[in-house]
């Protein structure tokens, strides 16, 4: 059963992951609050068209649903998603001097979390042979696009983290 393999995940790893998700969610929420306060960009649903033109993807976590949990694939999707958002956050560099510290912290925390997932996959012997490389990331050509991109990336990251939190808590259940 999927949970059989899950028992191979150390409890401390799962507790750290849960803490990291909460930390990144807090970082992301701060970025969203600051974008809303400073630039009146408060609702990602107002930026759907722009999101399509910029090509900001949503990372899948289909292997992590509790109905059809496939642990190895789920860990892989978790890592790939975090790696994707790490790249998207990097592309937002130069968003604005006031937001830069918040963006840096968010990116550092996402990078840390991706790295922990990768190490755990290596420990389990299920890590892909080659580390993933960043695909083409959106190009933000104006300050507005970087800020709007920030709202969209943060929003998609929060949704991704919500799913991740659910599966991690499921796996952490005694």
């Amino acid at each position: 059963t999927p949970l059989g393999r899950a028992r191979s995940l150390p409890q401390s790893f799962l507790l750290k992951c849960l803490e990291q998700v909460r930390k990144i969610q807090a970082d992301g929420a701060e970025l969203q609050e600051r974008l809303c306060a400073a630039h009146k960009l408060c609702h990602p649903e107002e930026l759907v068209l722009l999101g399509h033109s910029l090509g900001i993807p949503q990372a899948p976590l289909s292997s992590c649903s509790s109905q059809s949990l496939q642990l190895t694939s789920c860990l892989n999707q978790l890592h790939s998603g975090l790696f994707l958002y790490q790249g998207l956050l990097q592309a937002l560099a130069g968003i604005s001097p006031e937001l830069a510290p918040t963006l840096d912290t968010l990116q550092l925390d996402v990078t840390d979390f991706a790295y922990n997932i990768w190490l755990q996959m290596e420990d389990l012997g299920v890590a892909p042979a080659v580390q993933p490389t960043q695909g083409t990331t959106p190009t933000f050509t104006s300050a507005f696009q970087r800020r709007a991109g920030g709202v969209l990336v943060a929003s998609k990251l929060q949704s991704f983290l919500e799913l991740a939190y659910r599966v991690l808590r499921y796996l952490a259940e005694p």
Partner: protein
Amino acid sequence: QCGHILLSAPIVRLGDQVTASCIINQNCSHLGTEWRIVWKLEPELHPRERQQRLPNGTLQSTITLPHLNHSRVLLSCCLHWGNSLQILDQAELQAGYPPTAPHNLSCLMNLTTNSLICQWEPGPNTHLSTSFTLKSFKSQDKCQTQKDSIPDCVPEDGQRCCSIPRKHLQLYQNMSIWVQARNALGTSISPKLCLAPMDVVKLEPPTLWALEPSPAMAPPQPGCLRLRWETWKPSLYIEQKCELRHQPRLGEAGWDLVSALPARTPQYELCGLLPSTAYTLQMRCTRWRLPGHWSEWSPSLELTTTQR
């Protein structure tokens, strides 16, 4: 230049022997015949001296300090020339010890500055200018092997602590950390720590509040107090446990402790106390189920129990 000083070594161990020579050049022709070399030492010392004329005609005076017991000595090579004393050259001698290994290295992850702050004790005074450097590297295992290097952390002058910024940290991975001490006489390093920054997080204390009486709630029982608390906002994402201590404000009674309390609660009733008595309460919290350090105790909250 008429004369110059040569030292066997500018910096030696305290108690070691030192020799210094002052050489008067031939081209110091305008001296005439009535002159002699005179050494001035600050503080005053009584070295053994010998003077010799070298084959090339220069005159060399050599002094020996068998056991240099001062950490700083200023040497001046002078000439008694006519009825004046002319200073030709000066040199400073230093003496001290190589650094011993720094000790009591400890580190805390500070969530306010988002940095890992490490402090240590330098060991006995070396009497010499000694630099301390906090060194570290990231490791994927228990610090046997280095994965990534981390830039040296150089403390501000005289400081015995250093702060590694967040951008050099992986909060949930082990890193090896040690302190290097170095001066002119040698280098030493402290024992190494192996830790993950988040496992040494130290939280700020929670905040305690009195619970205002409200019509929706019956008044507290005699000998009971009602309060609530909130953990420090930057640590909301961290699972924590807390403990509450209380003591009567007057009298000699010590602290009583209530442990294993949740990190946040909208309302808490503390009973089993003396009625109509003023109490001082404090709380502290720590990261829990995962390692961490206890916060300091919170500022006190003063509450009085109801009468019987």
